[in-house]
């Protein structure tokens, strides 16, 4: 199985989630993160004290899928998350050795 980690623009979350469900993804973990990259942050000034906020809010998705589905998922995310503007985000694929569903104890692909 593979874990697909994607950092996307927050307002794209719902669209991506829907796209993924339609291609059969049954679950994921979503984390609000601070992204750092080419997309620049902004500055805030409080009574003359200037703070450069270098981080941009992003949504981090983790999706574990059977090897076979990996590419479909990556494509789906790419399509829906893309706006063409800097900061659209990244997708990373990593290997997962084992998966387990706590409720039933089902393993690997059955656990997803």
């Amino acid at each position, binding site marked *: 199985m593979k874990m697909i980690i994607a950092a996307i623009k927050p*307002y794209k979350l*719902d669209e991506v989630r829907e796209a993924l469900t339609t291609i059969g993804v049954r679950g994921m973990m979503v984390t609000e993160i601070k992204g750092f990259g080419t997309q620049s942050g*902004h*500055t*805030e*000034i*409080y009574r003359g004290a200037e703070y450069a*906020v270098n981080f941009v809010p992003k949504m981090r998705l983790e999706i574990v899928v059977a090897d076979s589905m990996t590419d479909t998922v990556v494509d789906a995310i790419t399509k829906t998350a893309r706006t063409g503007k800097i900061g659209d985000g990244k997708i990373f694929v990593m290997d997962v050795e084992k998966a387990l569903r706590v409720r039933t104890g089902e393993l690997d692909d059955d656990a997803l």
Partner: protein
Amino acid sequence: MNTMLKLGPAGAFGALALSGLPAWAQEGPIKAPTVEQMAGMVDKGDTTWMLVSSVLVLMMAIPALALFYGGLVRTKNMLSVLMQVFMIVAVVAVVWVVYGYSMTFTGGGPFVGGLSKMFLAGVGTGTYAATFSNNVYIPEYAFVIFQMTFACITPGLIVGAFAERIKFWPLMLFSVLWVTAVYFPVAHMVWYWSGPDFLSDNTADAGYLWGMGALDFAGGTVVHINAGIAGLMGCLVIGKRVGLGKENMAPHSLTMTMIGASLLWVGWFGFNAGSNLEANGLAALAFINTFVATAAAALAWVLVEQFRHGRPSLLGAVTGAVAGLVAITPASGFATPMTSIILGLVTAPVCYIFVSYVKGKLKYDDSLDVFGVHCIGGIVGAIGTGIVAAPSLGGQGWVDYSVFPAVAGTFDMTAQVITQIKAVAVTLVWSGGVSFLLFKGIDMVFGLRPTADDERQGLDQTSHGESAYNL
């Protein structure tokens, strides 16, 4: 027409005359007293009441209204809303003392006052303003202050209609133009008159709607219908929020909204009971009516939700309360506690329908329901006032100030309701029309709306360079 001259409830009348107790009560009231005589017609209890009421109304604007609205927007726009309401208060306060008071509360014409009191010329610690009782006065400054708080909060109400998508400075410009071209004239039409000790000498010396006999105890037309229709025009001109219907736009903090609503309820007693200008039994009546109408409206809204969705919501409870406060505003000094409860029970469902259905159907993005709650609730209240004021229903009727000393007038419910409807119509047309033109004009010249990207990122960072929370 002077037979129709009216304002202020009559029921309490006998009592008032008695309890006023000016030093010369024996010799009977003095017609057109001199300023020296007025100085002796001031009761410090009234002065205190007016100052306290002013404090309460300011509190309604900041922080109450700002929080009520702010809690309903998304985190990224919280500060923009707080900022808009706060600065509107600041800007309008200055405008008020410069020319607003003069335009509103000096004679000059039925539609707008003159400029004789610009920069508060002639107003001093030794000048006095009339109340609704013969020979009872309050320091003019106290009256200037009390009315100033009304002018400061009204444009603030409007911003809710296009929250999350407006540029700051153009909004400030709009606010100044709006109070000048809409609020001051309408307030003049509804509230200006020469006072109980002077009117009988010249019954024409009063605002257009006042002279027409429209009853508006604390500002249902002037404040709520006025702001509500302006808000509708604003959200129509500006358009919908980016992502509306697609993204989750749930309130970022109903806690703040609840604080705001509670303080609105608390402060509204200054608004309604303070509008009596005297601390007497009639002020207490306006107070209790405000209290129970609000309670009934909150209850009604929550019951509607229970039946429609199977669950009552806090947002529903506080929205109902505000609708009730809006509706009772023009009626507060005329109704009885029982008819106030009925008014509250009727208003909530009507507003609910506009907020939950009409808005969706007609597809306008009145973000925080300024039209659905303030304009609609205000209309229900304004027209309802014509009914609940009826002495036959225990109402206070109206006072005929065309004679001196004033006497209770004879009440005709049908005629009164028609008059109320006329007043509502005039306000809708005037405010709706002028507001639309102002929005359009400013939009063309300066642009009202930030870029889509700025709107996405949120106005706090893009317009003000701050974040509401760094938890």
